[in-house]
């Protein structure tokens, strides 16, 4: 489905992505994790060339996206959904219009697009908010609109760029639920950049750990988090252990977690 070979990206002297290679299979959910600034978001953005890579290949559906013209890449982007950390909704448009935008611009009649948008919004539980503008929605709702917008195209590949990073913990769940549902029904192949350990543990088919622009470890979550091979993996393991211990709270004399 998606093959990344020796991907490079520098910002001046800073090497953001260094020789990253990755294989994502059809229907697979791959989670990229790592410390902040390790190159996760840059890597995921170079896949659909929102950030132009300096080198390497991104093979999607058998074609190298890095060699495509701007018109070709625009066509490919319609097959790849992208969910942003900051939601990136069009402020002047309603939730429904945000979802419709890509469809209409792709030539779909407005009514058909509206139906599709409504379906997408329903999928993320926001059909009632269809007429509201982003500024009138909560962060979680906005992100769900963003997800609906990505889903409206029924993409073959979904790229998630820390979709919960801008949400307060209470709102994170409603997004994660949507994501888990999508992953559960294998609606599309997903590459997810996140710091959400529970999501990674429960949803990821494969975990890829990055550090300083490089892939330092990858594997199924159980393996990576139980027997980490990298320093980053080790630190995640310790974190999981810490969270498990501190999550064992006693409430009214009963242990609840």
């Amino acid at each position, binding site marked *: 489905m998606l093959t990344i070979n020796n991907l490079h990206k520098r910002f*001046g002297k800073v090497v953001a992505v260094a020789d990253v290679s990755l294989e994502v299979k059809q229907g697979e959910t791959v989670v990229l994790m790592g410390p902040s600034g390790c190159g996760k978001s840059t890597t995921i953005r170079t896949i659909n060339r929102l950030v132009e890579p300096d080198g390497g290949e991104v093979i999607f559906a058998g074609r190298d996206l890095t060699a495509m013209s701007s018109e070709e890449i*625009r066509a490919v*982007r*319609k097959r790849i959904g992208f969910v942003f950390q900051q939601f*990136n909704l069009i*402020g002047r448009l309603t939730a429904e219009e945000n979802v419709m*935008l*890509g469809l209409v611009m792709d030539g779909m009649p407005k009514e058909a697009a509206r139906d599709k948008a409504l379906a997408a919004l329903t999928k993320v539980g926001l059909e009632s908010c269809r007429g509201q503008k982003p500024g009138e929605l909560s962060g979680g709702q906005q992100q769900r609109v963003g997800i609906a917008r990505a889903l409206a195209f029924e993409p073959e590949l979904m790229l998630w760029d820390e979709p919960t990073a801008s949400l307060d913990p209470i709102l994170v769940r409603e997004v994660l639920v949507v994501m888990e549902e999508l992953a559960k029904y294998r609606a599309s192949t997903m590459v997810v950049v996140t710091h959400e350990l529970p999501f990674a543990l429960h949803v990821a088919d494969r975990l890829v750990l990055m550090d300083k622009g490089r892939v330092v470890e990858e594997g199924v979550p159980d393996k990576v988090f139980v027997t980490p091979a990298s320093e980053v993996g080790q630190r995640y393991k310790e974190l999981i252990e810490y969270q498990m211990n501190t999550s064992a709270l006693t409430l009214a004399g009963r242990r609840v977690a």
Partner: protein
Amino acid sequence: MTFAKNMLRDSFQRDIIILLVVSILVGSMLASAVSMGANAYFSKTLASFVGDYGEFDLIINVREEMKIDSAQQIQKIINDVFPGSTMKEGPTLTGKTSFFVTLPAQYQTKQVYEDLGKTFGSIPGGAGVGVMTDPRLTIRGVPEGAKNMLMDKIMQMDGVRFAFRDGSSIGVVLQSLEKSAPVEKQINALLKQYQVIEISFPVGSEPANPIRLGEAIAGALQQDLRLQYAQNVSVDGKNDDMTYAVSTMMEMRRFLTAYASQVTITPTGGAQLAKGDTLVFQGTAPAAPAAGSPPDKNNVLVQITAIKSDGTAEGTIAQGDASALANPQGYRLDKNLVAEPVATVSYSNPRQQLAGALDETSKLVAEIPGFAQDARGMSTIAMNALESYDSGIAAVEKTLDGVQAAGTTIQAATSGLATIDTSALRAQLDTSAKGLGGLIGTLKVLKLAGGDGSSIDSLAGTQSSLVGLSSTLGALDNVAVNARQAKTAIDSVVSGSQSTLATLKAFDAAGAKASLSDMNGRLDKVQQINAPLVAAQLQYMAASAPNLKDEDISHTLAIIDKFIAGQVIPGERIQILTTSNISTDAVAPIVHREAGHSNAALYATDMGIIEPDARGQLYQVLHEVKAILAGITAMVAASLFLVFDHTAIMAVIRRRRLANRTKPAGWRAIAARFAAISAAERLYGMACGAVMLTAMFIFAGGGIPYLPWIGVPVVGALLGLLVASYADKISPVAGDEIMAGEALGLSLDEVMREIVIPAARPGLLQKLNNRKVKFR
């Protein structure tokens, strides 16, 4: 190629081009509307005072209280003289009402405009007529005498309808306002070809007749410096009759001054006299002036005009006549009262001298016929003498030959005598005579004694014969000597006479006769002269000249001085118009020579200065204000369009430029700062600013003082650069929204139309974009 394709399809680039075109049209219309509005307002305000530009040809100012009568009179004049003309009453300011007159084209002529003063001279309460015909140029400072020449040349220029005398200036009526600049350029070039050399004379060195001196200087300049053009332009010597009158007056003044009595005053008793003092003389009054009394009308008053270095003074007679100055004692006149005696006077009266000379001349003339008659007689005698001159010479020559022959004969006749020795014979004869004398004495004694006395007489006779013979013998010697002397004398006479005769022969008797013949002809003509008539006229002149009294002359001179002083001819200044290629240094020696002194200052001035008329100037200012307003409005409009329509575009361009760029550090940061001007968004801003502003300037007729046309696109580019530098702050774009659009596969055109422009500042672009946007 890509750009061309984008223009053909429905692209955002085409939107930008359309935006620019619409912006230019809107901006131009706005600038035109503002400038035309302001121009209309000011023009209307101005027109209420002085009429619209080119609407009227004449302005006639009259006194407010007479305006009704004046209006009727003006209407009558224009109906009679300029049929088809219209009149409009203008505003009344400071007690004067203006009437504006529009003349039909056929009356807009040099002749009509130069005669306006006469044409409208009969208007009651008239305060002046002015020309308002536009477009018009005014040239001031042109010397009177140069105006005709200048007008002739100007009227040959393309774009000039005619030129006319407009008071002290020259008015030039043009064919159109567009011709104003080229005609002005041509006139300026013409003015530069000439210069006016001003010659100023200080007090005391003024020329007696500046007109004549000016003409003399101009002629000398042409001759000595070989100047193509040099003209005395102190006054107009061609058309102004007054010039002739003034010139005549000046000559008359010079004549009268020359025949005024020359009064010389000698101070007495150490008195001090000053120029301007008046002295009183007895004149024809019965008694000498009395101190403390006012001067009598029969007294002679002399005003001192100059003090000489030797203390004597010159004066003119203000009252009376010099002939009445029999009593030479003069008294000072102090506060119109006779004061102490201060001087004695002597005078010479040129009029009397003239009269005497004329009288003598008339007598001489009367004698001319007699002289001619006598001369004719003498001439006849001389002619007769000359007729016998040659025969006389021949006779003299013959006589000389005879004399010479006689000398030769004498010499031959006496040559024998020269060899005879008569001295011994004469001694013997003298002795015999003496013996006879003794004998005779004896006989005389005997006779006394009674003897015979007859032998005594016989002996006395013998003795006398002996003495006579002796004397004859002595004379014979003298004859020989005399004969030699005579021969020598004859030779000398003959020799000298022959020399004289040669001189006499050389005399051109025939020429002398021809001369005498000519003289006879002239004498005949002299005899034909009507000598009595000439003599009578001379006697008439002699009789009339003295009729002028000195006081008459003084008063006449005063009147002439007043008249001349009131004319435009400044006695102390001469203006010579000449070509500009000669310096005052070269002219000065000629001026000094012609003036007879070097007490004159020379300097060169322009022939004239172009001065657009005030009204034209005002409209020109209005025209400029209109252009400035259009220019400023265009600049404001361009700035607004840049700010409201183009900043969002610039911000997007900037974002795309910076998307893959890292922030430079160190010297690269400094270099990047300098290179920032070439950043895409700034180039875009400069291009848009330059195109918009230039086009708006052209379409709206904008113009900023001191800003050349080439500067307009530069200013536009600077505006664009300035706006581009602050594009992010003026119209920030949401980068995440743009990225979302890109992630959805939207093209840049779609991103701009659906995301950027609708969210940008409201402006023309947003309005235009509304047609294209899918989600409003």
